[in-house]
């Protein structure tokens, strides 16, 4: 129960951050990616602000030894750069460049009930499910030690 309230508040902060940063607007995201056009560097500043706070915050948090409402930190364990990572990232980038939305940036605009974000979101869910199906097949390349991607 408390972990859910914590997650809810974290989600609200995340959504507010996306809105404040301008990243809920595909035009600004594409403006950053449009290096040959009228370039808008804002997204770089969003990442800079986010990484600065998170890098410092994570250090402080990890030093406490454990989260408040859970027994352990659930962290990714793999370190090797493998084919699924690169192929997946490359594919993600193409989709991101086409639509201007990503999983995080679309969440705080769904409430607008505008159809475009919902179209993207529906296709996003289909894509994630397709990916999970592909990665769960016995003949799929092994995901390595640790839980399958997307599953805690």
């Amino acid at each position, binding site marked *: 129960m408390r972990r859910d309230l914590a997650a809810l508040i*974290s989600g609200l902060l995340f959504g507010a951050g996306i809105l404040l940063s301008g990243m809920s607007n595909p035009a600004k995201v594409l403006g950053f990616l449009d290096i040959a056009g009228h370039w808008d*560097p804002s997204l770089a500043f*969003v990442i800079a602000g986010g990484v600065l706070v998170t890098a410092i915050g994570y250090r402080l948090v990890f030093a406490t030894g454990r989260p408040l409402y859970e027994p352990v930190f659930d962290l990714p364990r793999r370190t090797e750069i493998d084919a699924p990572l690169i192929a997946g990232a490359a594919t993600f980038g193409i989709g991101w460049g086409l639509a201007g939305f990503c999983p995080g940036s679309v969440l705080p605009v769904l409430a607008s009930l505008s159809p475009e974000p919902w179209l993207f979101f529906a296709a996003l869910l289909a894509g994630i499910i397709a990916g999970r199906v592909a990665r769960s097949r016995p003949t799929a390349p092994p995901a390595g030690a640790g839980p399958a991607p997307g599953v805690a």
Partner: protein
Amino acid sequence: MTEFTPLSALAGGALIGCSAVLLMALDGRIAGISGILGGLLPPRPAADWDWRLSFLAGAAAAPLLWRLALGAPPGFVVSAAVPMLVVGGFLVGIGATFASGCPSGHGICGLSRLSRRSFAAVATFMATAAATVFIVRHVIGA
């Protein structure tokens, strides 16, 4: 054409960072949206659906709280035609699943942990995204 907004970008990024730090401090989880969302979906959804749904609900409800506190939230402009939104959405979903992350998971959380997988993922998706926008806007002229 959008304007460079360094201060709100930094502030928004810092707020996203606060969200990630809070989720790790209290729940011990990475604030990676594709992973949080993916864990709710088949096949074999994760058992810890409760915090995932809570987080996503919070993110989706943020504009409503924004409206209560500050008035209308920032607007957005979608230039992609419907086929690009749908194909793009699907590629984002399947790509993030194979990459085990997206800009929030790899870009914010992973880079902050100095994860070499995240550096590789971010460099790769930034490159293909920029290439895609170049082709769409300057080669095809869409």
